[in-house]
């Protein structure tokens, strides 16, 4: 039995079905484990009326149909829940506001925190369901601990690190013990048409993948200076500081090369002065991280500093660190410097474990 569905058999679970292969197989495994499974597709687009005309949101419509077809194959009830209003407020508006504040948000994480394991889970519980099952690649065992997937390339524990123990106690991740190729093979075996549907990579609400254009549309043009960190000189102009991310190298459009001829990167964004500060790669290196709003998933709030590993962005490097609680936040001393640490991203702390690294906790990077 795959990990994550080994809980009490025969409970009523709600399977969040995106229309992709992962959530379809996750639902199938929950059915096979003997649970009473109901499939739900979340309609997240702001104006579902546009679905009628097919003018926009065609991908969403197709995903909805794929999810429905998978539920039909599994023989489970299936409904579409309209979460568009909450998604707009809690994920999309937040995404824009975070960029406007010079930070780099992770909308998938935010969606897990506010939609899938909050609004959807709360509604499910109110309607009499015991848990929500999703196709996330992470392990969640009977011990209630969240661990990395066996498929490290697909591991999503980083974007789930924000979940509380309470949320995790009502969640099931049946795919954590499987690799993506195994999941696809199983989908084929089960006759699920989504078996070879491509993985989704882009932010779902930025349909064309042009995040900068998406932000520009909402925040408007706000021209300002690009400044060299070392000299304080203006080395270029930008049309909106929000379009930049710490660590970014491409698309800076600098007027002149650096005196040393080496590439320059975004070091920081200052919304107050609408300035983007650039400098050499080594200036990006950070060895201390402050973070706020910590969630301690893997145990109680640590009383003393913890030696662990931390990850500072999705699919980012993992480095050893000492993590200490500071008031209502936390501080991580990195044992080796990391480049491209952006405010707004999550720091997730892991305890290395042969059975899958355990998520200890998570917080939002402040500086």
């Amino acid at each position, binding site marked *: 039995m795959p990990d994550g569905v080994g809980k009490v058999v025969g409970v009523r679970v709600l399977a969040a079905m995106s229309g992709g292969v992962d959530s379809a197989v996750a639902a199938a495994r929950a059915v096979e484990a003997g649970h009473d499974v109901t499939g739900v597709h979340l*309609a997240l687009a702001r104006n579902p009326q546009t*679905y009628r005309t097919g003018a926009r949101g065609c991908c969403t419509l197709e995903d909805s149909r794929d999810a429905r077809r998978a539920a039909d194959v599994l023989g489970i009830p299936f409904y579409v829940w309209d979460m*568009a209003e909450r998604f707009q407020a809690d994920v999309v508006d937040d995404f824009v506001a975070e960029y406007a504040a010079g930070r780099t948000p992770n909308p998938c994480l935010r969606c897990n925190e506010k939609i899938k394991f909050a609004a959807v889970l709360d509604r499910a519980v109110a309607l009499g369901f015991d848990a929500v099952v999703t196709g996330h690649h992470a392990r969640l065992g009977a011990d209630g601990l969240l661990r990395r997937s066996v498929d490290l390339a697909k591991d999503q524990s980083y974007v789930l690190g924000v979940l509380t123990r309470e949320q995790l106690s009502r969640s099931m991740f049946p795919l954590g013990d499987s690799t993506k190729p195994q999941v696809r093979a199983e989908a084929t075996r089960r006759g699920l048409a989504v078996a070879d549907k491509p993985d989704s990579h882009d932010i779902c609400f930025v349909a064309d993948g042009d995040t900068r254009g998406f932000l520009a549309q909402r925040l408007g043009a706000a021209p300002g200076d690009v400044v060299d960190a070392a000299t304080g000189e203006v080395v270029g102009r930008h049309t909106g500081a929000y379009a930049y991310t710490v660590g970014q190298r491409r698309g800076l459009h600098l007027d002149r090369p650096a005196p040393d001829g080496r590439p320059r990167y975004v070091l920081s964004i200052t919304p107050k002065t609408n300035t983007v500060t650039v400098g050499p790669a080594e200036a990006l290196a950070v060895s201390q991280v402050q973070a706020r709003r910590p969630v301690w998933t893997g145990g109680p709030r640590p009383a003393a500093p913890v030696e662990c590993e931390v990850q500072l962005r999705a699919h980012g490097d993992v480095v050893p660190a000492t993590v200490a609680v500071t008031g209502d936040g936390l501080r991580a001393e990195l044992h080796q410097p990391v480049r491209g640490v952006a405010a707004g991203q999550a720091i997730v702390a892991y305890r290395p474990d042969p059975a899958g690294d355990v998520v200890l906790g998570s917080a939002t990077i402040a500086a």
Partner: protein
Amino acid sequence: MAYLDHAATTPMLDVALAAYVDTAREVGNASALHGAGRQARRRVEESRERVAAALGARPAEVIFTGGGTESDNLAVKGIFWARRSADRRRTRVVSSAVEHHAVLDAVDWLAAQEGAEVSSLPVDALGRVTPQRLHAELAAAADQVAVITTMWASNEVGTVQPVAELAAVAAEHGVPLHTDAIQAVGQVVVDFAASGVSALTVTGHKLGGPAGVGALVLARDVAVTPLLHGGGQERDVRSGTLDTAGIVAFAVALETAVRHQQEYAARVTALRDDLVTRVRQAVPEAVLNGDPNDRLPGNAHFSFPGCEGDALLLLLDAQGIACSTGSACSAGVAQPSHVLLAMGADSARARSSLRFTLGHTSTPEEVDALIAALPEAVDRARRAGSLRASR
């Protein structure tokens, strides 16, 4: 299982199913000139006569179609096109705010693609269109109106419209009136000639026939431009090989439903009244929508304050009870009903509604099953509803 969604589709009558199977075993294109073709044609024409007789129309007025949506589109667009061609000033369409999407979206399409000007007649709190409003609409500029379309009875809230009075107003101004009678035929008395309408939509699967076959009854003096062009079947109005088996089964079902309408209505109305009484006992806050008297026999449509209809549907579905929240968009998202909104309900009340519809197979046990499951479902749906409200 309790099937309380007969307005969506109702089981085929045994006689219709038998007629379908018998006919489907026979070969023959009704347009062909040989013996097999003549046999098929004979079955189609007999069916046309049965449909005409049951609906108070002449056989030549019955055009077989692929169902209700096609008939509605043919009537609305076809009559608009034909009358505008005859007189360029006729660019207006008068509709009501509570039409089915098959009419509503056809009218919207005419507005968007053909430059039609659309007047939507408002309804009162019970969902009724009033002849006075139609009169006021036509008094201004009847010579600019190409077509009027108002349904016979509401598929959502079950309100039966004063169709004959509306048709009289239309006739007074010389404008053809189409009525979507899909929900009405077999449920209430529907007589094409006596009603005075110019065009009437009926479909098979709401009255015990197969889905995918229906008819547009069209007065002979009303011109219509075809939607489908091809072999020239159905007096050149509706090309396409005739679905002989479907047409035969449709005619048998329609004839049977109309013949038994009185006893059906008496039995189903009693069962429906029992359902309404017991729902109100079980959930005192429940509000019955639609006209309490002039309503379809099988229709019980409620708002359950504090609940969302789609939550109730999920919970009742889990208990084996099939009912409906009204329309959903093509992605499956429940929409607040345009009918309830037109009746003056706010969005919350529109979203809190649920439709139970009874039909020829309905039993008291099915009502019992609903009443047994409803209180807990309402309780849970309220808890879920309060999450949204408290946000």
